[in-house]
């Protein structure tokens, strides 16, 4: 029913890739969970590559938990309370992972000297965004904290289930390291009425920032879908790393990570070599 492509490339300007991504497809393939996170990479957030990995792990775990217990079924009304609980849980579990990591890996003498404020509140060093989706046959739930992009393609029309936050300009973003992070989570519950979307695209902000405007960026969704139809999934898998490198080199210069979920086209070969990722 679904085909997934995930790729991440490192910026030439960064010593390491601070983005993370993860997805899960169960054996019966009745749902898909995808997650992308963008570690901030600023001087203060020197462990954000670890923070972003924790973030995608926590999100995958939570979506799987909620799905297995059918908590999101028939939630067209009354989603509000559930999403608040989920935001709090994700934030709490991410903080727990960070604290465990800090206990095992205290700041080095060099890290202690980086910033006095971070030394007092060491969670800041793990700061990251988070976005993801739970995709089922009956509904899709999108989640976003901070910058990044979620595009949905339906009949050649690209939409954003979660609108861009106009407050987030100049590289500023909400973060899991914020004590109030749960209040900045945004959700969208979308029941499947009629067709499943042709494509769902999640990406870190390095992707959209590589284009002069949103219109040029949104062409990516249309182009990926056309490539899937015309050239097939293997063609995309073979070339996507080069495309993303070209994009960041000639665009934002940022780490760039994306996950693409295609609605399977009839007669398309079944997923080859697709690893089911489990906790």
């Amino acid at each position, binding site marked *: 029913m679904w085909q997934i492509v995930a790729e991440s490339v490192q*910026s030439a*300007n960064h010593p390491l890739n601070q983005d993370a991504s993860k997805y899960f497809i169960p054996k019966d393939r009745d749902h898909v969970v995808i997650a992308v996170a*963008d570690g*901030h*990479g*600023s*001087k*203060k*957030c020197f462990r954000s590559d670890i923070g972003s990995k924790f973030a995608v792990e926590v999100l995958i775990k939570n979506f799987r938990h909620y799905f297995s217990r059918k908590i999101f079924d028939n939630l067209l009304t009354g989603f509000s309370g559930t999403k608040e609980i989920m935001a709090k849980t994700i934030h709490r579990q991410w903080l727990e992972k960070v604290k465990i990591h800090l206990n095992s890996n205290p700041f080095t003498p060099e890290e202690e000297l980086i910033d006095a404020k971070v030394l007092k509140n060491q969670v*800041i060093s793990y*700061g990251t*965004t988070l976005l993801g989706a739970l995709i089922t046959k009956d509904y899709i739930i999108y989640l976003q904290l*901070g*910058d990044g992009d979620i595009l949905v393609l339906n009949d050649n029309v690209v939409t954003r289930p979660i609108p*861009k936050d*106009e*407050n*987030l*300009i*100049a*590289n*500023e*973003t*909400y*973060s899991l*390291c*914020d004590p109030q992070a749960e209040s900045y989570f945004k959700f969208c519950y979308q029941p499947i009425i009629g067709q499943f979307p042709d494509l769902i695209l999640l990406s870190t*902000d*390095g992707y*959209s*920032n*590589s*284009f*002069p*405007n949103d*219109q*040029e*960026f949104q*062409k*990516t969704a249309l*182009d*990926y879908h056309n*490539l899937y139809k015309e*050239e097939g999934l293997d*063609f995309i898998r073979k*070339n996507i790393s*080069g*495309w993303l490198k*070209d*994009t*960041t080199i*000639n*665009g*934002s*210069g*940022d780490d760039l990570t994306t996950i693409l979920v295609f609605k399977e086209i009839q007669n398309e070969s079944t997923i080859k070599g697709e690893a089911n990722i489990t906790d």
Partner: protein
Amino acid sequence: MQTKRPGGVLSNRPLHFIWILDVSGSMEGDKIQSLNYAIRNSIPAMKSVADENPNAEVLVRCITFGNEVKWHIGTAVNVADFEWQDVQAGGMTPMGKAMNLLADQLKIPPMTDRALPPVLVLITDGQPTDDFNTGYQSLMQESWAKKAVRLGIAMGEDADSTVIEKFIGNKEIKPLVAHNSDQLVNFIKWASTAVVKAASSPASQLEGETTTGNVPVGSMPDVTDVSQNVVW
């Protein structure tokens, strides 16, 4: 298969650098000559910094306030093509109106939401002769003004440091007081190189983490060096 790369045309991110220059009558003579020299002198280094980061497009403009408030260089020019046009001194110090003029250009549009934090550099030798506060309030209503790196250079001790500090709006960044031409060159070079370099970094910052902009500007230039003659 680069030709099949998904997406439209690619673009690096704009970084707007705007000089806001006092060209009032008190700047006549040595000060205005030094200012023209210092800015012209800073351009090669600014171009070098821009070359080092092809993911940022450094765009330069200039507002002057004196006999009139105007865009001395109104079209944002890529620093690679930028040539300094000398400014002339004369008139009062309508700094408040300059803030209004600046505010108009920091709206979205004409700014885009994907720009890098702008760098705004105010240089003055005196104090406003109009309503600075109203102009400043108008400026600070714009998101891009709040997120900008705002710097202030005083030419001599007569400049109104309170006004410059208000413009900067960050206790960690002090007004730079230039007492002579060499110091002015040094400060202008710092603003147009080190700060531009910091602002062109794509690293994300925590929302609301800083009081002005979100760019750690690094070490400030040495302001205690008054070993040379105090001219201004």
